[in-house]
């Protein structure tokens, strides 16, 4: 009886130590898990826009902040994706080539094609 009584605090310490170690491991493996638990989870998302028949399709899009937009050229003609405020600019895109930009800050972003100024698109970031 005396042996069991003496081993209980040691076992408790061992259990506490392993739990602490496990917790530390969990915290290390999932950094920000504590802070993430304090704000809503927002998944990373990619939204697609097609460039076809010299148009951006869809021409207007509303997305949450942090969204990555991916433009893909479906035309044989070369196009660019160029912000009208010089915020972002793709190279010339050939058929099948794509360009991505991640919109971190809310706002209204107008863009055009350097070769075809009649082409216009808008991204509204909320």
């Amino acid at each position: 009886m005396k042996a069991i009584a003496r081993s209980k605090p040691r076992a408790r310490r061992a259990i506490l130590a392993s739990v602490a170690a496990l917790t530390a491991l969990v915290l290390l493996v999932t950094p920000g898990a504590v802070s993430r638990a304090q704000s809503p989870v927002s998944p990373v998302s990619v939204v697609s826009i097609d460039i076809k028949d010299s148009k951006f399709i869809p021409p207007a899009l509303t997305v949450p902040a942090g969204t990555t937009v991916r433009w893909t050229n479906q035309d044989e003609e070369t196009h660019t994706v160029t912000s009208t405020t010089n915020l972002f600019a793709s190279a010339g895109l050939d058929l099948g080539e794509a360009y991505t930009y991640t919109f971190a800050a809310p706002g209204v972003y107008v863009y055009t094609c350097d070769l075809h100024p009649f082409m216009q698109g808008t991204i509204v970031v909320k």
Partner: protein
Amino acid sequence: MDRMNRRGFLECMAWAGTGVVWTATGGILSSRVLPASAAAPAGGGSFSFVQVSDTHVGFKGEANKDATVTLQQVVAKINALPTPPAFVIHTGDLTHGQKAGAFDTVTEVLKGVKTDNVLYVPGEHDVFVDGGKEFLGRYAKGGPGWQSFDYKGVHFVGLVNVLKYKGEHIGALGAEQITWLKQDLAGLSSSTPVVVYAHVPLWAVYPAWGWVTEDSQQAMALLTRFGSVTVLNGHIHQVLQKVEGNVTFHTAMSTAFPQPAPGTAPGPGPMKIPEEQARPMLGLREVRYTVGTAPLAVVDSTLA
């Protein structure tokens, strides 16, 4: 005009691809079919030159697997003309998107033309990557690209309407160039025949597709006093013509791929048709000047 309305005019213009000479006097069109072996009329001071446009070297698509091949075919056709041209004018889009090596290819292939000189004005495909640095360095000694010269009493003016001048977008001449044009024309008598060449059409062909130069009215106002003005443009990859008083506008075929007639497709891009269907829609233009006559005679011929 009698029963020739705008649609009829445009339908008639479609025949220009089959070796028909159209001349217009006082707004009335008359035509004659050229026999294949016709040479330019003899006479001191008469000459001819060739316009090629939209060679798009570097382009690969359904209508053309290799734009360099069709350009070489056009050079062969130029060299087969009964009268060698005094010079060749290229109205832009030499390259497709300034692809690596494309400017070299264009220059080299056109060196094969039996002529004394080749003149170039840029298209938007030649300048959008670097704001015109490569093109202007190669073909304009780093200058602004607009140019003029006289040949046997005819005044030639090359304009640039594909660069962004002070916030304008492509399809504009800009104030500095218009000022230059005014000074360039100032000393000429109104009986001097004038030929103007530029990439984007200098009349409103189809603004919804960017087929317009937004400040061209200011340039055209400087030209109305002349007895004969011939405007040669490219950009739209088809022949369309317009007569306005003493001014005749002609857009040209491409040597690379055709584009749809205004409003007949969802967009202005390359027509997606097989090569054998596209070839008869590609070609070159011969322009002939005979002393004492106006306007200049424009002869379009196709690759097939």
